[in-house]
């Protein structure tokens, strides 16, 4: 393993993050505050409790997941797309590194950034509502796995994208709807029976459900199913990336 290379890519990517630290920090804080004003105060005041949890607290895991997923996606996809766009990818391709080292560097940095945002939102949320975390270790594990798997997914999007429009396409048209419909702001049990079934095909449901379980001990789907889903998604992304580097798809042509 070329650990020097992994560390170099990681540091270089994190430097980009630190250059815009204020932006990276302020925007999630503001958007979280906005969500609390809209969902917590305005709408939430008319909703009693969901699964025995006050609505304001109930949406915290969903909010964190929403940001963590979109941040991981956009950071990782931009991280690898930008070198392609400005041409610095040549250096990566001509360096003595394998796909695992490249992925560790880029995905590691993107996941770190997403994790950071997740923690910022958690802390911001604590200013608005009382938060009690039932299973802290599981909470960290779920957040970490989500950061990693969505960064992997973002990395694939970044390699696939041929322009900035395509870069935005999947996060905007696929992931955001899936997250919103994945129970970020409601419990699946609140849906009509037909939609409860349809929703089960949304992979994000399993992530949000598992994450919410780590907070409140209640879940829409069994926790093992959640873990299996996120593990499977991670494995799928890893397999795809391995294939991309093996064939040189969209990078070594």
């Amino acid at each position: 393993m070329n650990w020097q290379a992994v560390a170099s890519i990681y540091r270089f990517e994190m430097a980009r993050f630190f250059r815009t630290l204020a932006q990276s920090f302020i925007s999630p804080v503001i958007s979280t505050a906005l969500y609390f004003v809209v969902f917590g105060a305005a709408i939430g005041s008319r909703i009693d409790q969901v699964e025995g949890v006050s609505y304001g607290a109930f949406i915290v895991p969903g909010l964190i997941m929403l940001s963590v997923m979109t941040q991981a996606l956009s950071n990782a996809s931009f991280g690898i797309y930008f070198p392609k766009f400005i041409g610095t990818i040549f250096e990566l391709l001509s360096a003595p590194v394998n796909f695992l080292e490249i992925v560790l560097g880029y995905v590691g940095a993107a996941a770190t950034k997403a994790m950071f945002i997740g923690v910022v939102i958690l802390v911001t949320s604590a200013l608005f509502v009382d938060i009690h975390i039932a299973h802290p270790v599981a909470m960290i594990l779920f957040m970490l796995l989500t950061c990693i798997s969505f960064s992997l997914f973002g990395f694939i999007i970044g390699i696939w994208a041929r322009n900035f429009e395509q870069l935005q396409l999947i996060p905007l048209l696929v992931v955001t709807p899936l997250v919103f419909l994945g129970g970020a702001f409601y419990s699946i049990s609140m849906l009509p029976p037909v939609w409860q079934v349809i929703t089960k095909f949304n992979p994000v449901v399993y992530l949000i459900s598992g994450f919410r379980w780590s907070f409140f001990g209640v879940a829409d789907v069994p926790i093992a199913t959640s873990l299996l889903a996120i593990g499977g998604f991670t494995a799928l992304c890893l397999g795809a990336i391995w294939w991309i580097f093996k064939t040189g798809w969209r990078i070594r042509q």
Partner: protein
Amino acid sequence: MAMVEIRDVRKVYEGGFEALKGVSLDIEEGEILALLGPNGAGKTTLISAICGITLPTDGTIVVGGNDVIDNYREARNLIGLVPQEINLEPFEKVINTVRFSRGLFGKPRNDAFIEQVLRKLSLWEKRDAKVMELSGGMKRRVLIAKALSHEPRVLFLDEPTAGVDVELRRDMWETVEELKRDGVTIILTTHYIEEAEAIADRIGVINSGEILLVEGKEALMAQMGQKELRVELTDPLDAIPDSLSQFDLTLDDDGRTLVYTFDAKADRTGIGRLMAALPDAGLKVCDVNTVQSSLEDIFVGLVHGQGEDAA
């Protein structure tokens, strides 16, 4: 054993375009090889295949005894690449982007060495500047610094002086000479013939994905070059005297110079007979010199000739 061994390398792009048509080439350790060819000849594709940026369709490439695909780590550790396009992260500081390159090649941080490289390329003063703040020439030097940051034994310079002013070009050539003294093997592509002429040991001519010839620079020019004997006359001529019609002569410089074109490799150059014939024709000579025809003439001849063969 050659430092770089290229055997029957073909590259066919997705659309069916054959950029390399079975290229074979040996590059010796410590030499400067100039790959000369027009735009689209396959120079960059060949370099990309050696450096791992593109996968060759066929053939093998071995660098320092390491196959560039099977033993890519060992092979790439030996290689530094300065690309044709100025591809740099615009928002990063000069020194950080050079450090990044060193790390990427698995070398531990070595600030003393990085300083040495930056000083050699007159970039030390600009080490904390963002790349986007630099002039075009300086950006190109940053690319060279990045390529040298991991102490490569083989350096590829893809059109290093395209769009670079004369002074910087001379600086670049000096840097290349210095690297050669350190034993670095250097391959540069160019379509500036004067560049190949100025710094290369050997010259390869590539066109339409084929190597047309590879030859020592001196040998190439001696073998294929025509020479001109320029005879300056005291009194200008209106026309070449009939008594000299047997020689291949032209008038230049308003009749003040007789130009005799000859093959320097021939058994009989005809110079002796010409010089003897001049006084007989009543001509007074005030100066004589010979001029070697440039690589440019050779190059144009070769590429043009290939076009005619194909037609």
